[in-house]
């Protein structure tokens, strides 16, 4: 319980760092007033907005105002759409979470199975083939794989829709694309972790007591080998989000990633801030869950 509390207390720290970083980048990329008002603004309009945005005050004070607004859930008004930025982002969040969840689930599921297979048949044909496939999968850029999948499954075979959001069939290609570049990591980490655990003394003991191969694997080796894989989930979330940006663009998926990219191109700063913040919250919360799951699996972590 104390461990959970301690982890919860740490949650705001990375969020604060992200917000500070966003603030600095925003101030670096130009005068916010110029971005908001465009080229045709009169000096009076500029003065008014400057005061309203507290830009006439010292930088640390500006940051305090910025934080205060964020704490009240006020991310500003979208420059393009004149609606609250957070509302625009929130509308897209569900689509992204569905995609991330399924992609991650598929990657972990396939990765662990294949990793175990590699470990069991170490240095034999399955290990060899799966390891090569893992390297190939990791070397394939998602945008290229996505287009190949569309070409093959949507156009040549006509089994799946090319893009957009609709029934579950719309999820298949984006999920597979997203999962493919994560699966290799999970295969390799599972493989090594299982191999290392299998060399531990308690496994030898179990074998000596007559436990059969499969039973040793599922009951003794895997529960002890799984923690590095769970850590990897936390570590991969950032990459996964990056992959989601590409995947959402290729498959016209109405998620936060695509919104964020188009907002960057349009210089719609409040939307960028709101989406970066939402992404950061998602990653921080997911990492918290990862830590809790690890603590649940491995009592040694709770004791630390």
């Amino acid at each position: 319980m104390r461990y959970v509390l301690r982890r919860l207390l740490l949650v705001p720290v990375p969020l604060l760092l992200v917000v500070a970083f966003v603030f600095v980048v925003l101030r670096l990329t130009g005068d916010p007033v110029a971005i908001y008002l465009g080229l045709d603004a009169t000096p009076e309009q500029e003065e008014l907005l400057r005061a309203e945005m507290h830009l006439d005050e010292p930088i640390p004070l500006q940051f305090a105002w910025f934080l205060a607004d964020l704490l009240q859930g006020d991310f500003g008004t979208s420059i393009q759409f004149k609606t609250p930025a957070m509302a625009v982002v929130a509308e897209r969040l569900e689509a992204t979470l569905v995609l991330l969840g399924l992609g991650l689930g598929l990657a972990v599921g396939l990765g662990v199975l294949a990793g175990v297979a590699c470990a069991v048949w170490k240095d034999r044909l399955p290990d060899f083939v799966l390891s090569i496939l893992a390297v190939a999968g990791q070397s394939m850029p998602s945008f290229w794989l996505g287009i190949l999948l569309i070409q093959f499954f949507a156009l040549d075979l006509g089994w799946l829709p090319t893009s957009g959001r609709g029934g579950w069939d719309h999820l298949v290609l984006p999920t597979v694309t997203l999962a493919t570049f994560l699966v290799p990591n999970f295969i390799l980490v599972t493989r090594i972790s299982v191999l290392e655990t299998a060399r531990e003394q308690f496994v030898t003991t179990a074998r000596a007591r007559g436990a059969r191969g499969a039973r040793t694997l599922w009951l003794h080796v895997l529960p002890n080998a799984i923690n590095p894989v769970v850590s990897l989930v936390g570590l991969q979330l950032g990459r996964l989000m990056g992959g989601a940006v590409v995947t959402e663009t290729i498959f016209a998926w109405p998620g936060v990633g695509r919104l964020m990219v188009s907002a960057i191109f349009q210089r719609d700063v409040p939307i960028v801030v709101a989406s970066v913040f939402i992404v950061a919250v998602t990653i921080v919360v997911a990492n918290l869950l990862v830590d809790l799951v690890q603590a649940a699996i491995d009592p040694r972590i709770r004791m630390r």
Partner: protein
Amino acid sequence: MRRLLGAAALAATVIAGSMPAQAQDDTLVVGAAVFTDSLSPAAGGYITLSLVYQTWEPLVARDPDDKLVPALAERWEALSPTHWRFHLRRGVKWHDGTPFTAADVKFTIDYVTDPKTVYVRKGRIAGIAGTEIVDEHTVDIRTAKPAPLLLRGLADIAIEQKAVTEKLGQKEAHRRPVGTGPWKYQEWVAGDHYDLVANPDYWGGPPAMKKLRIRAISEGATRVASLIAGETHIIEEVPVDLLPSVERRRNLKVDATESSVSLVLTFDTRKPPFDDVRVRRAVDYAIDKKTLLQQMLGGYGSVLDGQLVTKATFGHNPKIAARPFDPAKAKALLAEAGHAGGFDNRINTLSGRYLSDVDIASAAAGMLSAVGIRTTVNVVEGGVWSQLDRNKEQGPMYQIGWFSVGDADFNTVWYTQASRRAYWNNAEFDRLWQEGRSTLDETKRLDTYHRMMEIMHEELPSIFLFGLPRISARQAGVEGWRPSRDSLLRLHKVRVR
């Protein structure tokens, strides 16, 4: 791994036994390249109008060729240079059944022009001094000065219903449009699609199809794939490199039109070497525009006639023609200007903003290098670009596209000091521009723009490259579709066989 994943996907498909949703018989499905996050006429970029005008309408509209046509106003006349009378179309009903009247027009124009209102395109009708209701079907608009561009400006202002806006508030009224247009709002899913149903009582006759779905497909290759797969009937903006794969399919057709976007290479005429008009002309002779058009734009669109505006734009001067491709002459001009040994040069460009922009800039740079102007291409990120623009620091040459939306006033402004962005400074040109926008006399206006085009042709503040094309594609069974010069979707008469 891919085999494994393929098998997984296959298994999943077989289990559910579902086939991808083909476009339904009574629904027209359009794959849009740009899809904004708003249905509000008050916000969003110009392209928002493509969605807004499915449900709403202006008083005066543009047709696909940028010509002005009656919409909610049946006809209009200028009672004096600053006093316009609009006769509204009778028998028009809002989607909720209430009749459209002069009160709605006055309400909309008043709130758009109110200084306190945030309305993104309010500048389009900035000259309006007041509106008066003459009777239920007649509205007068007064302008502070003679405003020849009022009608074109009104084409970008959607008329909204007074009663609905007052009841729901602007925000809510903009979320679920109640308009007079051919299509009625049904459902909006941010970033994915916009569903509409036909308005059977539309004054222009009911739409040819029962339903309309506009899908957001920003990636070009995916858009083309959706058309090939039969999920969409029409797609906007076919990427030039994918044109062959569409053209070779018998069940698909490509339609193209020339937009009013003029792609140009603008010089910093304040600094050497481009302060010398001979050097600018040398550049004009050195670029083989016809070959570029064939190679980079698939032969669609057109080479500009040695002037800023496209053929279809009001103000085009038929007496001016593009300078021919003549590298020998280019070299001679360079030698005459004291640059026989050539010089180093750079072209700034955005990436993906205009059709084939980086490719065109790179090929042009190659052609310039061939005559001794050693040119590199510098691809600039959008935010940096706007700062360079604002500070007039784009460097010796930069590539940009200027919209005219049918009238020369609109893109010539960028060459006047009024724009605060012009590198070139020509007093006669600035004066003519002011003249052109302050008289209602069309002949006089045309003469003015003809003279302005002559000045630009001689002085060459920019190299005039192309009227960029709009290239769309459709299923062969789609009838009544053509891409519009102004890029807005006009789908009222489109039918799928």
